[in-house]
């Protein structure tokens, strides 16, 4: 168990308000990812991190920022939430398996509704 905790698990907010989602891991994994999942689109990468203060953009990064000031925490911020950002957000860490490849372990998800 990679020990990934996402918070909050559910949030309802209004358009234009800032929102921060937190992903916390307990096993010192270097790589962390934020995906969003929407009907008809599947999982899409927002941002990822390959170390403290090292982050990069994914496929759908517009309107999102991230920060990683500690190995264990990866924060996703919506500076000014819009209704199009209503989604389920998943955090993931990358783990090496026996064959030497890396697979993802996901958190339970954070459901965000922007009214």
């Amino acid at each position, binding site marked *: 168990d990679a020990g990934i905790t996402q918070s909050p698990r559910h949030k309802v907010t209004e358009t234009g308000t800032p929102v921060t989602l937190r992903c916390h891991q307990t096993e010192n994994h270097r790589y962390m990812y934020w*995906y969003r999942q929407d009907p*008809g689109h*599947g*999982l899409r*990468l927002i941002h990822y991190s390959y170390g403290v203060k090292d982050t990069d953009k994914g496929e759908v990064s517009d309107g999102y920022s991230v920060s990683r000031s500690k190995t264990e925490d990866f924060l996703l911020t919506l500076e000014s939430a819009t209704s199009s950002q209503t989604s389920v957000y998943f955090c993931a860490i*990358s783990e090496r398996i026996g064959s030497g*490849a*890396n697979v993802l372990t*996901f958190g339970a*998800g954070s459901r965000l509704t922007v009214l």
Partner: protein
Amino acid sequence: SQKIEQNSEALNIQEGKTATLTCNYTNYSPAYLQWYRQDPGRGPVFLLLIRENEKEKRKERLKVTFDTTLKQSLFHITASQPADSATYLCALSLRNSGNTPLVFGKGTRLSVIA
């Protein structure tokens, strides 16, 4: 453009039969392909991985094939059970650099009917 497609959004199958799910991709050269299972309200869970130089991988009732010429992977569940009902996602790793972010298909929702 680059695309990863899973053959159908939903698949219904009778208990005891073999379920076959398809993942096709275009304009990618994946180092390996992974399959995940997702239950409602939960995050995806890793099931199997197959490398570009492997033809087939098995794990209990699961079997994955990978044909880089056809650009296709097939995921089989033999002797399917109602507990196998879930959404199954395929994902590509695009380079051999290990931690390259995965690209996911939209998933196929499998329902196994008793």
